């Protein structure tokens, strides 16, 4: 190794300095180390040397080749780095642009609230029960101790249909009778019956179709205290443990004693506002001890068993949970309105 090699390495160094792309460096590599490259030719020349010189020259040229490879690799790495930096710079995005959210929709608020209530009672050991919407007058009225001409028939203005003795059910209470009949004397009867019901009303707080959930428990020694306990557990489960609950006597033909349940108004927290008409309370359900006539119509002996029943308006509960003041919004199906519910992340978790 002598002046010769140093010159060549210096020349290579200059060539690499001048190279500005990876491609150029690869061309340089070819020119030096390729099959017809300078070093390759030198290495071939070593084979022509006398045997005694060949070994030393071979080692020498090999180390030159290694040095050249290192220089080329270094240059290559430097340029690849530069090119990557350039590419990254060119690919810069405005990362303040919002992402494309997955187009996930929501169930209707009434479905979500219905399920919430169902889940509460399923956990308490109730089973779901259903009945037809086009219902016989017997199940809807007579069996529930509402004979013809009873004032309560005025309270529930019914839709009639062109099939004799049938109506659109005005409440889910007929499922009490159907549920007892299906249980056929077995105890306990412990059902909830969600469903659509119909009344001839249409204003900001009434719609001709709405949803109820009926509950019924029949067993030995069921008491009004059991009803209060069950409903307290429900309201706490649904609306949180800081909710206050008020029980008031009321009247339903199919329960005696009858009781309505109020909870503190969500909009004002009980201090009184427009939503609660200044009372601080919002009524959420009607309930009571199953009337002996109803028990008998369900096939149970009121001397042997007692029961409680309750009926909860899903719309009313939804209005309480979402602090709505116009019921009709729930039936307009305005997507602008429905999509707002995706912003609801409050309690209860829905």
């Amino acid at each position, binding site marked *: 190794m002598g002046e010769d090699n140093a010159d060549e390495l210096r020349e290579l160094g200059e060539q690499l300095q001048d190279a500005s792309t990876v491609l150029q460096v690869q061309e340089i590599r070819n020119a030096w180390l390729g099959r017809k490259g300078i070093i390759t030719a030198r290495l071939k020349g070593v084979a022509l040397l006398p045997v005694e010189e060949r070994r030393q020259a071979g080692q020498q040229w090999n180390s030159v080749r290694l040095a050249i490879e290192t220089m080329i690799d270094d240059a290559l790495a430097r340029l690849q780095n530069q090119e990557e930096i350039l590419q990254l710079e060119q690919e810069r995005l405005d990362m303040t642009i919002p992402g494309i959210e997955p187009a996930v929709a*929501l169930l209707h608020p009434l479905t979500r609230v219905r399920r919430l209530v169902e889940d509460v009672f399923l956990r308490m050991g109730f089973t779901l029960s259903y009945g037809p919407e086009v219902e016989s007058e017997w199940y809807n009225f007579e069996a529930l101790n509402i004979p013809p001409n009873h*004032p309560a028939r005025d309270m529930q203005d019914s839709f009639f249909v062109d099939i004799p003795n049938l109506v659109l059910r005005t409440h889910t209470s007929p499922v009490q009778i159907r549920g007892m009949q299906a249980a056929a004397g077995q105890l306990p009867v412990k059902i909830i019956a969600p469903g659509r019901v119909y009344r001839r009303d249409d204003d900001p707080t009434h719609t001709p179709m709405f949803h109820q959930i009926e509950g019924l428990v029949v067993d030995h020694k069921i008491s009004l205290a059991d009803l209060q306990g069950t409903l307290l557990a429900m309201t706490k489960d649904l609306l949180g443990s800081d909710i206050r609950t008020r029980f008031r006597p009321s009247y339903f033909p199919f329960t005696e004693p009858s009781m309505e349940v109020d909870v503190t108004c969500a909009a004002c927290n009980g201090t009184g506002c427009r939503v609660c008409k200044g009372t601080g309370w919002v009524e959420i359900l009607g309930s009571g001890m199953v009337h002996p006539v109803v028990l008998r119509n369900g096939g149970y002996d009121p001397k042997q068993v007692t029961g409680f029943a309750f009926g909860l308006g899903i719309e009313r509960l939804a209005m309480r949970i979402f602090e709505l003041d116009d019921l009709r919004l729930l039936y307009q199906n305005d997507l602008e309105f429905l999509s707002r519910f995706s912003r609801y992340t409050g309690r209860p978790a829905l």
Partner: protein
Amino acid sequence: MKLSHRWLTRHLPDVPEPYVIESILIQMGIEVSAKESWGQDFAAVELVRVVARVAHPNADHLSVVTVEGRAGTMTDVVTGASNGMVGEYVWYAPPGTQLPDGRILDTVNMRGIPSPGMLLSASELGFQEAGGDLWVYRGDRPVGTTFLEAIGGVDTLYELELTPNLAVFDQSVLGIAREVAAVLGLQFRDPSREFRYGTDGNLVGIVDPMGCPVYGLTELRLEGDGTTPLWMQVLLRSIGIRLIHPVVDITNFVLWDIGQPLHAFDADAVVLPIEVRRATDGENMTLLDGSLCTLTPEDLVIADQKGPIALAGIMGGDRASVRPTTRHVFLESAYFSAAGIFKSARRHRIVSDAAQHYGKGADPSMVVVAADATLGLLREVSGLATRLERSTLQGKVPNRREIAFEPERIRQILGVSWSDQQIQEGLGRLRFEVRDRSVVIPWDRHDVMATEDLSEEVARLRGFDQIGATLPSTPTRPGSRDSEVSFHENLRDKWAALGYWEVVTRPFWDRSRDVLGLGFEGTPVVVTNPLREEESELRRDLLPNVLEVLAYNRGRREQPVSIFELAPVYHQRNGLPVEPMALAVAEVLEVAMQYPPAADVGIFRLKGALEWVNRQLNLGLHEDPSGPIPGFMHPGRSVALYNASDLLVGYLGEIRPRLASLKFHAKRIGVISLSPIVPSAPARGGVILAPSRYPDVSRDLSLMGPNLSYQAIIKTVSQSGALHLQKMRLIDVFAGDFGKSVTIRLIFQSMTRTLTDVEVDQEVRQVVDALKQQGVSLRGQ
């Protein structure tokens, strides 16, 4: 019912504060739907003394009156009144006062003299007073007293909602006062003096003792011109009762005070004797309100020898009604059975205060009490002398009902441990008399029939919050939704997760809304008393309701709409209703303008969604593009849907674009309609295979052919016998003047080894040969 807090003091000398009353009402089950203060308008009206009076210089019939008011203020007021002489006390309303008729007073120029406000007559204040123009005050209050002070200050008025059971006995101030007194243990004034009727039996005969068990009639001669006492006027006006004539005002007062309706007849118009009987068929009468009423034998009437003079317990007739000039009166106090009155009032659509009371059930023992109260009040009317003449009481007050006293059952129903004595004491406060093992029910508690009712009474009195909260002792095992319900809930979840918003529509429908031209098969369930013409039947198809929601939203704003509903539809089969579940999905097929841009996949998003749901929930659906689809659907972009039993259950596709634009404000709308919707394929469980460890090989084929359908290609390829073909994917569809070209990607793989090129070529050839036999060729060959 409106309740005046002030009125309560008649029966409760120590009436509690209004807010206490409200909480007691709520405890007793009486809903207070509104509460307001009354009388504030009278605070501005002031008692003044006339200190000077001179004739108006420019008008003959006017006078300028100088009055002295509060703190010696002197005011000159112009008046046209003939009374109001120096030294008299009159009521003065300064400018700014609002009168009951709505007028707001100002300072007005009266023929050149400014007159601030005015001196008032009784009627200008909404009251009645016999005598001159101005209401001259004859009491002993000082100048400066406000009219509000003179009538006892501001009152609190409650609007009460009485449930049907409470309306039976709580529809009077007495009823409410009794409840309050019972809860709080307050002193209570019970009007119990009974009028001793005479024995002029020939005045009245009861022909229908079932409809009218007791009937009392009193003949009165009035002399002079009295007006109803001011305190009574105030109470009546506060609950919105119009003042008419002292006799009528007093019967109205007694009605609301103790709950007993009374009726007064003009005795000179009555031809005795009076009969209480059923009407004859076709008999008719003109009522007080001027309406003609055609009677039936189901109606009970009070009749004289010329015909009916009152629809019993509901409304008097015009012929024998009391007029301002009436001075000879028959006063009726009676007890009618509730059921008959309720039915008659309903049949004739009459809502009167009397019917509201009798129709719910009155108290027979009050007949004589109310008569006594009325005559007592008549004596209070100044300027009116009342002379009692003949009177009679027919019929007999029925016995009170008795039921068994079962304290143990009461405890069991309520879940309490109250002693027999506590229960008995509670019932006693509400006038239920416990005798040995039975309870005597007060006459007016027609609602109490059994121990359950007594339980409610005791609970009401002691307060529902005094009952503990327990849970039923039956063992609890968490329940769950059955498979059908779970399926429906799952279905909803899937569509929502896919980006389709759930909507809830009402099932009312009418063929006038059928913009799709659905045509009608089968029989609908018709609503015979719909709220609106366009809601006259129940839907047989869910899709139109969902499309209405789509149109509503598009009508409001140009926005993407992807919605679904799972709900019943209603059919009438063999005269019986059936309510199968249906699924309807609708979506506006357009690409929202957005950055980064989204791909336009058209109907294939909806189709893919259904295919995914179909697989996830074992719907077992398969499609047929040549199956029957409704006429409103795009014939080239729709498929009929069949379930696993090859039953036609619906369709998927696009609505004809012209119809979509015309009716639904969207160029392209994709829809799905399915009913019934049930899982028709067996659930798929079992082994999930591990993937092959060997590499796969893919080959693309571009195919051409007449009427090339992807379904046909799949079928041919899968039957070609290519052993290692694992998957096939559609990667391009291209249409040009050469026809349609379809590019598919075939993926080959073995579970046991690496496939050679030769093997794969061999299998591709097999596929191509099979396709060629179906007339499909490779593009470029």
